[in-house]
Each structure stands twice: as C-alpha cells, then as structure tokens.
C-alpha cells in the first residue's frame, strides 16, 4: 500500500504499452481495458484521499507531504557539474484535490470516448499516456520529473486533437503545440536556474521542489533571495517569476496568451475537450500554486497588482468574448478563460480565503466545464452542428437534457448551492480582505459574475426556450433526449457538483493545513 501513489501514476502507462500488444481484432476491448484501468486508478485515489491526514500540521514543506516516495533516478557526471534527478513523489492539501479531480475526469473522459471508432488502438494508447502524465504533474516533487510529465502531456494531446479532431484540426493542434512548447521553454530556463541555485541537506545541487519551497539556496547563486545580480535591470528572481508567469499563464490561460484555447477546444473531439478544460488548465493553475507562488513568494508580493490586472482582464475579456460567440463550444471555451481568471485573483490576493478559493475554483471548474463540454457534445453528436441560432425551444423535445443544461449553466454562473459560487465568493472575499490589493481589482472582478449570467442565460433563452425549431429538417429525427451513457456521465458530475456546492468543506478541509503553511511564506 505504501507505493500506492506510484501505482496510480504508472499503472495507465504500463497498461498503455500493454495495449499495443493486443491485436486490432480485439479492438472492442480497448475501451473496456481503459475504463477498468482508470476506474482502478480512481479507487486508488479515493483510498489515498480517505487515508490522507487532513489535520497534519507542518511547519516546513519538508514535513508537509504525505505518501512520499523517493528513489534516486538519474545520476550523471557532466564534467562541469553533476545532474541529480530523483523519482520523488508525494501529495499535500493542494495536490490531493487535483489528483482526485483528475481521476474523476479521466473516467468521465473514457465514458465520453465510447463512440470513437477509428484508430482505436492509437486513441486509447495516447489517452492512457495522457492520464499518466497528468497525474504525474500533480504528484511530482522533483522539478525534473514534473517537467517531463508537463512536456509529456503535449504529445498525446497534439495527436488526439490532430487526428481525431474536427475540420481545422491540424491548424488547431499545431497552434496548441507551438504555444505550449513556447511556455515550456520559459519553464525550462527557470528550472535550470533553480537547479543551479538549490541544494539538498547534503549540499548537493537538487531538483527537489521541497528544497526549493523551503528556500534552501546555495549562497551566492543567481536565484538566491537578496542576490544583487541583474539582467536588463531586473533581478534574476523577478525574471524567473515573470518567466513562470508566462509559462504557466499559457496553460491556464490568461489574456492575452489564450488564443490557442478556443481553437483547440472547437476542433478537439468531446472527450479531449473534457480533459483539456477539466485538467490541462488546472495543471497551469497548479504550476502557479506550487512553483511560481510557492518558490517565489517575495516576487508574488512584488507583482501582486500585475497579476491582479491580468486576472481581471481574463475575467472580463473572456466573459465578453463568450457573450459574442455564436458557436456554443467556443462560448464555453471563452467562459473557461473567464473562470480561470478568478484563480489568478485568488492567488494574488495572498490571503487564506483567496488561496483556498482559487484552489476550490479550480476543482469546481474542473467538474463544471467537462459537463458543459459533454452537453455541447450531446447536441453536436445528433446534428453535427452547434451554432446557437440553429436551435430553439429544445426544452420541449429534450426535457432531461434541458434540466442538465440548466443545472450546469447555473453552476457556471455562480448560483449559491453550486460550487462555482463558492469558489468565486472565496476568491472575492480574499480580494476584498487583502490590504495591499487595490479595491478596484476586486470590484471589477464582480463584473465577471454579471457577464457570466448574461451569456449563460442568453443561451438558455435562445436554444431551449421558445417554440421548438431546428434549422435543418433532417435533424428532427435525431433530436432525442439523453442516452443512458450520457445520462450517467452528467448525473454523476451533477451529484458531485451539488454535493460540493452544499458542503464545500469536502475540498476545503483537505487543503486547509497546507494553505495555512503556504500563506506563511508570504509574510516571511
């Protein structure tokens, strides 16, 4: 049981390679194998979550992690120095909710992949590869391992969009690839810098994130706090922070680094949109928590207003763009930009409420946005069209579908009792409570809540209310209510969304102690 964390991380990877050995005659078994694998992963994650000690109070990051596993991995003498990377994993209150979320969404993703018929072997191979690397991102405590997982998400994603995507799939997938690759380069630079500046207990250079979080710097190194070395008039630490801001900001994404997102979403098949919105964006957010803000708390204070402005810009700009869309999927993609902006506001408030709110917002968005993309998939599967103006009065024909649309739309626009509200409320509470963040940033963020109501309600009115109408008469025969597979996915997410909205402490209790430790680094 002790290496359970490694098991849930590596199991999909091994199964993926096992899948390659199964001949294509048994293609139907691929999805079942994937389903069982991910289900097993989910059981393991829940087991870990239940055994996780919520009250574990730590005074330093070295004590903060649970289920830690560490073995030497790469030891290389480079001539001018040495390269030491460990296989080092563990979880704390920030990563655990995201790991649980990952397993849930991956399972939903498998279910929504059920209709994939072409090149099934490749599809499920890549899907399992992706599963492993996403989990790996959240549990890595070694920067090198993290970086490998972070990079490894790109490859399957590129092919999954590029092969199984829509009409403009090659444009979208290349754009996605180049964008995120660029972001990764910024992170790579910082990683090398940090490696050269951090030492472990024995004085050797290390990639350990724990050592970085605890601030064990080599004296005289470039990234040591208080180092006077400068480049282009900036200290190396602020440059490193800005690089991370760009690197993870592309993933999150914030405006103006977001333009890959609408294209990737529109062209990706439904299950990949689910993973993209539900999990990949969260990797960006997690990077902010663990690396940018965790390792550079001094810079977080210095760039507080800058990040706040970026957050507000994403919230309002993303929301207004969503309002302008006629393609339902694009609308939801832009709404993701808007909602992830709240994560930035929560972070930059540098308060307990804001940070736990930002984390909660990631979890809640991680449950709501996959459901929204599944809902778009429902109408797209039936008509191969998702222009809002082509539909009207669907409530008359598809009442169950309409119920779920209403549930998740209202969750998205932040109705109390559903988790979107909790995340936004806590973030805003933090933003208003912060003594150093200007009030106008907090007030402008509230505009985002009003705008989100505008675009979601407008869609409900245009597509679901009114008299029944579809643009093309051929579609009429297909306009049937949810199939049982769709129903299971949506009902499952719906139950979780309602539970989390009524009792948000399910997540907040897990993260409380870690956030408590985290917040202390800003006052140091």
């Amino acid at each position, binding site marked *: 049981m002790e290496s359970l964390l490694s098991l849930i991380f590596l199991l999909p990877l091994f199964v993926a390679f096992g899948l390659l050995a199964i001949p294509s005659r048994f293609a139907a078994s691929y999805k079942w194998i994937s389903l069982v694998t991910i289900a097993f992963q989910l059981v393991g994650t829940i087991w870990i979550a239940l055994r996780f000690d919520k009250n574990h109070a730590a005074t330093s990051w070295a004590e903060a992690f649970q289920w830690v596993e560490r073995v030497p991995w790469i030891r290389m003498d480079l001539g001018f120095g040495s390269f030491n990377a460990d296989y080092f994993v563990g979880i704390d209150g920030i990563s655990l909710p995201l790991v649980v979320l990952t397993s849930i969404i991956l399972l939903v993703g498998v279910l929504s992949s059920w209709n994939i018929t072409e090149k099934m072997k490749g599809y499920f191979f890549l899907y399992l590869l992706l599963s492993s690397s996403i989990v790996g991102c959240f549990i890595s405590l070694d920067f090198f391992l993290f970086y490998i997982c972070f990079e490894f998400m790109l490859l399957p994603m590129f092919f999954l969009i590029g092969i199984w995507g829509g009409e403009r799939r090659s444009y979208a997938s290349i*754009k996605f690839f*180049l*964008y995120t690759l660029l972001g990764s380069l910024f992170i790579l630079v910082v990683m090398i810098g940090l490696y050269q500046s951090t030492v472990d207990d024995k004085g050797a250079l290390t990639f350990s994130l724990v050592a970085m979080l605890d601030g064990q710097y080599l004296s005289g190194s470039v990234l040591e706090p208080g180092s006077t070395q400068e480049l282009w008039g900036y200290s190396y630490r602020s440059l490193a922070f800005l690089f991370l801001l760009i690197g993870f900001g592309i993933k999150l994404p914030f*405006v*103006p680094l977001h*333009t890959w997102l609408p294209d990737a979403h529109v062209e990706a098949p439904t299950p990949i949109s689910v993973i993209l919105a539900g999990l990949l964006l969260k990797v960006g957010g997690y990077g902010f928590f663990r690396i940018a803000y965790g390792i550079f708390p001094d810079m977080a204070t210095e760039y507080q207003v800058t990040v706040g402005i970026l957050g507000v810009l994403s919230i309002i*700009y993303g929301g*207004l*763009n*969503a*309002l*302008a*869309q*006629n393609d339902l999927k694009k609308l939801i993609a832009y709404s993701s930009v808007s909602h992830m902006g709240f994560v930035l506001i929560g972070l930059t408030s540098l308060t*307990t*409420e804001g940070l*736990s709110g930002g984390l909660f917002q990631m979890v809640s968005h991680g449950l709501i946005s996959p459901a929204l993309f599944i809902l778009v998939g429902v109408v797209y599967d039936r008509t191969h069209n998702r222009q809002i*103006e082509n539909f009207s*009065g669907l*409530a*008359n024909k598809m009442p169950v579908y309409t119920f779920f649309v209403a549930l998740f739309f*209202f969750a998205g626009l932040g*109705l*109390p*009792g559903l988790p979107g*509200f*909790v995340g936004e*409320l*806590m973030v*805003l*509470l933090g*933003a*208003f*409570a*912060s003594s150093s963040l200007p*009030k106008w940033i*907090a*007030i402008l963020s*509230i*505009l985002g*809540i*009003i*705008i989100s*109501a*505008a675009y979601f*309600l*407008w869609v*409900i*009115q245009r597509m*679901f*209310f*009114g*008299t029944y109408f579809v643009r093309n008469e051929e579609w009429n025969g297909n306009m049937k209510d949810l199939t049982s597979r769709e129903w299971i996915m949506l009902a499952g997410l719906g139950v979780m969304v309602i539970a989390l909205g009524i*009792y*948000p*402490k399910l997540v*907040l*209790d897990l993260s*409380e102690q870690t956030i408590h430790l985290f917040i202390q680094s800003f006052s140091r």
Partner: protein
Amino acid sequence: MSEVIIIATLLLPLLGGIVAATTKQQSGWILAMLLTLTLGLNLVTFLNLGDALVVEWFWLTDVRLRFEYTQVSGALLMLVLLIATLVTIYSIAYMKEEPRKHHYFGFLGFFVFAMCGLLMAQHLILTFIFWELVGFASYLLIGFWYKKESVATSARQAFMVNRFADGLLLAGILWVLGSRTTEAWAFVPSLLIVLGAIGKSAQLPYSGWLTKAMVGPTPVSALIHAATMVAAGVYVTYTLSPQLHPAVLEVTAYIGGFTAFYGAVCALTQFDIKRILAYSTISQLGYMVLAVGVGARGFAIFHLWTHAFFKSGLFLGAASIIHYMAHHRNGDDPQDIRNMGGLRKEQPTLFYLFFIFSLALMGIPLFAGFLSKEGILAATTDHYLLSFLGFATVALTAFYVVRMLLYVFDGESVKNKGNESVLTNGVLSVLATGSIWIGYSLNPFSHDFLLVDLFGGSDAHASIFVTLGSFLLVGIGGGYSYFKFKHMDRSKSYLTSRIAAVSYNGFYLNHLYELIAKGAYWLALLYRRGLKLNPASAISYSKSRFKIDTVLHGIGLATVLFAKMLALVDRFIIDGVVNTLAIGSGFVGSYLARINARKAQIQLIWMAIFLILVLAFLFLF
C-alpha cells in the same frame, strides 16, 4: 430543540417542493399541506419564543454562518408562510388545467424555502446566498410559460437586472466583511449595499424589471412580485440600516420617495390590470424604502406587512378577473381594463373583496393601509421634498385605484351573475381580514401597534394634520377620478388631460433615461454599422420602445455589441499577432532553407560574407 425548528422551517417547504415536483396529480395539495404544517409550527414557536433560536452552519473554513429565529424574523416568517399557503391553495384552482403544474408547485416550494432562509439569515454571506436563490426561483416562475418567446425574454431580462444589482450588493458585502468593521460602515460600501439591495425591490433605476415579471402566472405575481420577494430588498435594507452610513440613508430615503411618486405616476395611465398593480407595487415599495431611509423602521416593516395582504389580495383578485374574462367574455386581451366593465353584477363577491383591498391601498381609515401609511408620512414631515412626494403619491394612488375600479366593475353588464369559485373567494376573504384595521389594533385611529414596536418603532407620531391632510388628498384624488371616469367613453383615451401635465415631473425623469438610452443605442448602432454581425439582437432591440428600463437594455445591447467587437479584436489582432509571428517565422525559415539548398558556391559566398562580418565586428569593436 432550536435546531429542529429552524431546520424544519427551511426544509419542510423544500421537501414540499420536491415531493410536489415528483407527484403529478395532487402536487398542489401536498405543498399546501406541508406549508400549513410549517406555518403551524412557526405560530407555536413564535408564541412561545423566549430568546432567539440560533443554528450555526460551518460552511466555509473560517466563516460561521448563523441562522437566527428572532421575534422579527418569526413574525415575517409567519406572514410569508401564510400568504404562500393561501397562494398555493388559490393556485390549485387556478392551475387546474396546466399540464406542468407539478413543476409550478415544485418551484413555489423552492421559493418559500429560499424566502424563509433569507428571513432567518444572520450573516451577510448567508443573506446573499438566499437572496440569489430567491431571485433564481423568481426567474423560474416568471419563465414558467417558456414556450412563448416574450416570456423567455422577460424572464432573462428580469434576472439580469437583479443580477446587476446583486453584483453591487456582493461588492458591498465583501467590502464590509473584508474591512472587518462591525459597527458603522464607510460611505462607499454602504452605498453599494443599498444600491444593490433596492434592486429586488424594483426601486429606481431598476423599476423596469417588475413590469417584465408580470408575464408569469398571476398567483406568482401575487406571492413573489407583490408580497414577499420584492419586499426582501426593503427587509435587507431594514436589517442593515443601523450600520449604514447616515448619508447613504438619506440617499435611500430620496430613492424611495422618488420611486413612490414615479410608480404612482406610471400607474395613472396603464390599461393592463397587472401593470397597474405592478406600478402600484413599485410605488408602495418606494414608501417602505422611504420609511427605512428616514428612520421610521418599524413603520417600514409594518407597511410591508399590511401591503402584503392587500396587494396579494389585489393580484389574486386580478387573477380571478382575468380568468373570468378569458372564459366568459369573447374578446381580445383579457387583461385590458377597457374590455372589462360591469363585472360588479357578474361577480359580486369578488367585487366586494376587491373593493376592500382597493380601499386599503388608497389608505382609507378603517383599513390597514391607512394605519401603516400614516406612520411613514408622519416621519417625512422634516423633509419638504420627501413630504411632498409622499403626500402627492397619496392623491395619485387614490386616482388610479378609483379609475381601475370604475373601468373594471362599473358600466353595463354583459351577462347575468355567474358562478363564483368558493375556494378562491375563501382565500381572498382571509387576505381581506388582514387588510382591515381589526387585525392590528382595536382602535382604528391608533398609532401604537404591537407590530411596529416589534420591528423597531418610530420616533415620529402622526399629528392630526397628517391624518386629515392625507384623507383630504385621498378625497381629492379619488373624487376627481370618480367624476372623470364615471361617465367615460370606453373607446376614448384619457391621457391628454391635465393629469398628464401634473405628472410631468415624473415623465421628466423618464425622458432623462430615454436620453441616456438613446445615447447608448446610437453608440451601439454606430458600432453595428462598422461591424457585420448577426443583427438579431439589434432588431429585437429596435422593436422595443423606449421605456424606463430602456437604459438597461441600452447598456445590455451596447455590452453585446462591445463584446462582438472584442471578439473581432481577439480574432484578428491578438490572434493575428500570433499568426503573423507564425507566418513570419515560416517565411524566414523557408528563405533560410533555400539558402541552404543552393549550390555549394553560393553557400561558400554566404559563409565568406558571414565570416567577414564576424571578423569585422571583432576587430572594429
């Protein structure tokens, strides 16, 4: 023990809603039964109440959300539950033929749950949670007949106006919580809270949404858009008023005063019976907000209380009238008062009940509206403008009520006396009891009421001049109306007379909004000309005439157009930069590739040039 009562008050209506939504046939009776049970429970609790009952809910990590059952909340809970029960019973008859009636009763149960939560909430965040849920329930019920495009539009617009106000309220609440002051709040957050809270009460400038809300089923209008939800804004302002900045309270008073006057002026000229009542509600809510602003807190809630009875009575009466019109008179719009007339002979019981509610609304002595309105008018006497607005509204109210009565009940009857529903008239009789003086004090001219003291009292006491003055104004307004409309020609419009001139000031405000709205509209049109966008929204906009809420439409449309413009910016400028970079690097790449692919000599030349450049650089610098 206290937990049980609070939790039961919350969950019984919710349970009723859920059960009603799942059982098709008897849904109405199930909800009515559970609501009656909750009402009984509250009555017993209220009568035996010692200290306040408290339940704390650990919802977020550091936030303790408190529910409190105090005398004030208990009294209002009984009011809400009583009217909700009556409306539910009335709806059983009214919605008999509606195939989706189980949804209707489900939404109704959910609304009562949210309203009860709002009344017991003792933490600002908790207040906001139930505040939003109440608005959501209202959205569901306004949009109940969603198949009609206009209904769906109205529901969305009503929700959006509320949402805008909610945003301001949330900003104020969070500001206050963030600054961690408990006693007196600063000016800006107080202002945000008030400007947000009055949104639900349809005060200026939000008033437009309430008339939009009238597309919902009429019993819903009686419960939500007359008696309970719209009063929530008053209630929240009332509970927070001790902490609000004094200057903000003054602003509140003026908003209330102007709204009272505005609503009455608008009600003068309406022909749709529901719109008359809606504007009248806006006007009466204005009185309550005015009362909170000038410090007559007790009378604000007392007026809320009496208004709940007679206004829901008027709405339910209107529902009966509309129902009768739709079934027994062939004709056009069953809500248009010009098509009515002579109903006194055809529906005598309904007439007498409706008459009682009307007298209460006008503020005739012996009726409940008189008692509560007196206290508010008395409290305004220090402020000349507010006083003028308050008294002028009295006369205007009398005018439009008499006009409405004459239009609906006077004139030639078309048919003989028809059957009257015992159930619906029974419900109306209960409400009528709450609309006369006897429920509050044995002395019909008393100024000391148990309820007023319970709700925080008032310093001001009505002098004989206030009583006489308002009575005189009722006489003038009502009498003028009577002589004007008693022998009217129903086909003629009566809007061109001196009354329109008297109401000019009210329309001046309207013109101001119009101007702003027009500005926003033309700005939007300018954008539209520059952009080729889906014009559906613009067209639907240009069809709607300029009204009080046009300014909000203008902002809405301008926002959408602005959003469309931003989308183009996103597509062509931000993404354009990205794509230009990509194309640029592609171009450079292919050019470089060509260099590499050329013949060996050319490559050598390039190498030589490069080498010379490097050497030159090294030697020269």
